[in-house]
């Protein structure tokens, strides 16, 4: 009898465990749903951007036949680059929300592929139509644990944000994570012999690895 009473009292341990598991699973489901919602949002942007880059590529192929389409090509590249830049800022913000699913990381990688496409397209466009704008490629390491590197990257982001705000459509800013193991990007980067990241490549001519100021960058852009 006494044992039965005690067993009833101790039942609360199991009840609490059951309740915790239910609440915890519910919380995780909400978390997953929230993250999925953000990924869907980013994915919608991505699909639009993917269409734009395909459009730009198609236009680039067409430009082989008709030089008069250069203006349209430059304009398409700029619009696309600006969209992708805005989306990169949103992605950066949302990446913070991605704690339990891998979705955001995959989206980041997909965007890096898209931005690599953009870079290639700007190179081709510059070769074909001349350089109508400056291209600034910002290469960073997204998974570094090195605090010095992280701090340097934080400051680079701010400098480049200032630069973009100042120059607007005169520059195309392409941030790319160099450590995502993308075959296309790695192949392009091999040609530049970059020794350390973060690094900035301006118009495929200048490689900057030491932190600098907006003033100094202006010097490269205005050449």
């Amino acid at each position, binding site marked *: 009898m006494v044992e039965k009473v005690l067993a009833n009292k101790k039942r609360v341990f199991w009840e*609490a465990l059951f309740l915790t598991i239910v*609440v915890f699973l519910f919380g995780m489901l909400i978390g*997953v749903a929230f993250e999925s919602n953000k990924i869907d949002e980013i994915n919608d942007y991505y699909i639009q951007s993917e269409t734009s880059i395909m459009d730009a590529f198609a236009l680039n192929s067409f430009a082989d036949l008709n030089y008069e389409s250069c203006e349209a090509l430059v304009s398409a590249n700029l619009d696309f680059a600006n969209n992708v830049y805005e989306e990169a800022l949103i992605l950066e913000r949302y990446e913070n929300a991605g704690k339990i699913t891998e979705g955001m990381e995959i989206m980041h990688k997909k965007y890096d592929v898209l931005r690599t496409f953009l870079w290639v397209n700007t190179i081709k466009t510059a070769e074909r139509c001349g350089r109508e704008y400056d291209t600034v490629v910002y290469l960073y390491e997204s998974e570094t644990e090195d605090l010095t590197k992280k701090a340097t990257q934080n*400051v680079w982001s701010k400098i480049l944000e200032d630069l973009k705000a100042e120059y607007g459509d005169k520059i195309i800013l392409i941030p790319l994570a160099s450590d995502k193991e993308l075959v296309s990007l790695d192949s392009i980067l091999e040609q530049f012999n970059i020794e350390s990241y973060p690094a900035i490549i301006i118009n495929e001519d200048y490689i900057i690895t030491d*932190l600098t100021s907006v003033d100094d960058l202006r010097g490269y852009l205005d050449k």
Partner: protein
Amino acid sequence: MEFITWVYLIYSFIAFYFLFMFILIYIQNRREIFYCPPITKNYSLSMVIPCYNEEKSIAGTMDKLLEQDYPNLKKIIVVDDCSTDDSYKIIKEYAKKHSKILAVRTPKNTGNAAGAKNYGVKFANTTLIGFTDADSYPEQGAIKKMIGFFDNPKVGAVTSTVLVYNRNKFIEKLQAVEYKVIKFSRKLLEFIDSIYVTPGPLAVYRKKAFDDVRGFDEKNLTEDIEITWHLQFKGYLVKMAVPARVYSIAPSKFKGWVKQRNRWNIGGLQTILKYKKTFLRKGMLGNFILPFFVFSWVIGLFGLGIFIYRNTQRIVLKYLSTTYSVQAHTAIFRFSDITLTPNVLVFMGLGVFFLSLFFTIVALVNVREKHYKHQSVFTIAFYMLFYLLMYPILLIISGYKFIRGKTKW
């Protein structure tokens, strides 16, 4: 998932588990919380007050015991542990005026409360033996409310509601909130036979049970924790009479507070080591109380380690970013740096916080004090957001002192 995300999720799970456990115990037993069995037998009782340099409060404590209305309170044994102030003089004056009071003095200072308490017990020959600290004031009728529990022959000890007497300074107000939460949790633990302490301000023991565990352990800094574990070990039940209130003087300075908490933590460690062989054995002591204590240490220290590591990283990163920003002539801070996108960890954290807040409020409401005003919202918020965060830091200090062998009062 990152390692740190796992850590946060595991901590949330543990916090949810214990909060739900306490809330469920409360819901299932809320009608019995204030219940005290009626007195059917007038067990003879002696009260012991250990005293060392308490000239300011000892008279008040004796007055409060003299005011008690339990008819079979035979003796109030006041043990002076060779005080260097006027404590013993005051005790002797009271003994002259009141026949119930017996003034005794230890042959030499015992160095801890346990020694003086054990010494006082030698002068008692009653069925029950109670203790009150010399800086504590039992409310009128408190003792009477504790006696009925002893009708159950398995009950070895009955503890009371300990509340803070002095509530003027902010640190005292914080402790007032803390004591109420501790009191509420202790009562809830009674329903699963897991009371782990019979605090010194007011506790009554069955003399037979007290002798069975050979009294207080004089080597332990928290003799009131040790004796409770010992009683549990021997199979006795420990009960709590919630309506039996005692008001105790809490430390009013930060240094005194830290000292007291270190003593509690070191005593807890001593007790864990003494009963380590009962781990996951021997009823609720080995299956809940001991693992709960060990778990608290592990969780507290590991959590603090993670907290320090993460925040040190943040500070270093902030410092480097600021330095580099200055070098690069760019803004040190901009509002776009603040990202307010919530994530699953934020949801879990908020869940734990609001559940804790609910538990704290229920605990405060369940005190039913007439003479004191309720705590301000600011005090409760500070208690929850900052005061509780001090616990793990104190664990480190206590652990260090324990390893260094600093285990004296």
